[in-house]
């Protein structure tokens, strides 16, 4: 049976991991290679790296970071942040990334999804969607781009369907309402997207407890959960998360 995945997410700026990871007993907790190795050995199922530098130099640095990670970490790696062209994507895949995550560029240039899928395969094209609930007569989730700064006239559920039709092989869904609050994922949004598309959905934003992970998988019907602070700040280990989920009957890998 296919297991549900637990995916720590690391924000990288100019080749260094930002956000607190000081609990990890490493020589250099800001080194993405050491942290990737730590999570690899801790039993994470995949890793996502988001380059928040978002400059040409940043992308170049990220590629060399990925090269070094892939020398010792034998698990799937997804890299996102500021990728705008087929050449940007190609450089990271060549460096050892298995998937790339497109957000703003996918909205602004939808052909990038289809061109990338045609050239490299859907399996490596992840479309990241940042969505915020728009309360009104009929509530809906609006898509935001540019690191959540810019609303666009897109309904998140429609956009997810469209992205998959264009060739996205996976959706990385972040609830902007839940993100950073550690009060749980947006289950309603997660389920709406999971049920709308026939590709895996990674739930992101809001994990504070192990039960939150469980609810995103069981009720949100996500295929994977992404979390940052719950792991980085040492609140829980990946192994604890998996033991908890296994007890609740969720298939996980040990």
């Amino acid at each position: 049976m296919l297991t549900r995945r637990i995916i720590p997410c690391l924000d990288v700026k100019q080749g260094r991991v930002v956000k607190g990871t000081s609990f990890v007993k490493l020589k250099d907790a800001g080194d993405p290679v050491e942290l990737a190795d730590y999570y690899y050995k801790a039993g994470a199922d995949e890793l996502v790296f988001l380059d928040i530098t978002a400059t040409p130099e940043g992308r170049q640095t990220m590629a060399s970071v990925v090269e070094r990670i892939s020398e010792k970490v034998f698990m799937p790696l997804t890299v996102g942040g500021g990728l705008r062209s087929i050449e940007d994507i190609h450089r990271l895949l060549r460096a050892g990334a298995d998937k790339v995550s497109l957000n703003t560029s996918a909205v602004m240039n939808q052909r990038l999804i289809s061109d990338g899928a045609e050239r490299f395969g859907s399996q490596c094209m992840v479309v990241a969607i940042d969505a915020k609930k728009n309360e009104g007569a009929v509530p809906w989730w609006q898509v935001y781009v540019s690191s959540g700064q810019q609303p666009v006239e897109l309904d998140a559920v429609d956009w997810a369907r469209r992205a998959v039709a264009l060739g996205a092989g996976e959706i990385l869904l972040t609830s902007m309402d839940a993100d950073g609050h550690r009060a749980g994922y947006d289950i309603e949004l997660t389920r709406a997207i999971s049920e709308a598309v026939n590709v895996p959905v990674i739930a992101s934003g809001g994990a504070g407890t192990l039960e939150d992970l469980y609810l995103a998988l069981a009720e949100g019907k996500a295929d994977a959960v992404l979390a940052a602070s719950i792991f980085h700040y040492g609140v829980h280990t990946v192994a604890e998360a998996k033991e908890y989920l296994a007890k609740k009957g969720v298939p996980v890998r040990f």
Partner: protein
Amino acid sequence: MSSGIVIVDYGAGNLRSVINALRTLGHEPEVSADPRQIALARAVILPGVGAGGPAMEELDKLNLSDTLRRRVQQKLPLLGVCLGLQLLMSATEEGGLVPCLGIVPGLVKKLPEEGKTPHMGWNQVKQVKPHPIFDGIPDNANFYFVHSYYAEPENSSVVVGTTDYGINFCSVLASGNVIATQFHPEKSGATGLKFYDNFIKLAMGGQAC
């Protein structure tokens, strides 16, 4: 020093992880699209992600299809990985009906519609027949999969590992000197490295691999 292991580079996907896996095991592979290099190899790894049709076109264009068929007949140990497994079959239904290498008789079909595709993530491999490729790997160990098509060999006796995703499909096949996996050992942690190690031991030991 060269190990005599050649990774076939026909432009399909992430070779770096395969190279890194072999290096971690202490072997320096050659990465080549040159039929002469493959003719001289002691073992060949045929990796790949992406679509079957374009991959076959590329193998034909590089004159690799005939070389691979001939060398496999001459008992060259070969490991197919993911798309590399599918390309060994007679034909794939991906993009119509595209003839493949025909080294292992059988068809490549689309995974059933009920499940999400691609089948992406860690899933178990049931060892349905004992084989030295599984040495030191527990039954039902998890490996990392990413694929939308699966191979159905005509002769079920070549199926040594199966995986359940709506259907029970062939996730490891072994036919004489040819071994192939639908999952990515290079993405499957320590268990995956063990799988490569077993292949290399079989290939270099000259056992009936």
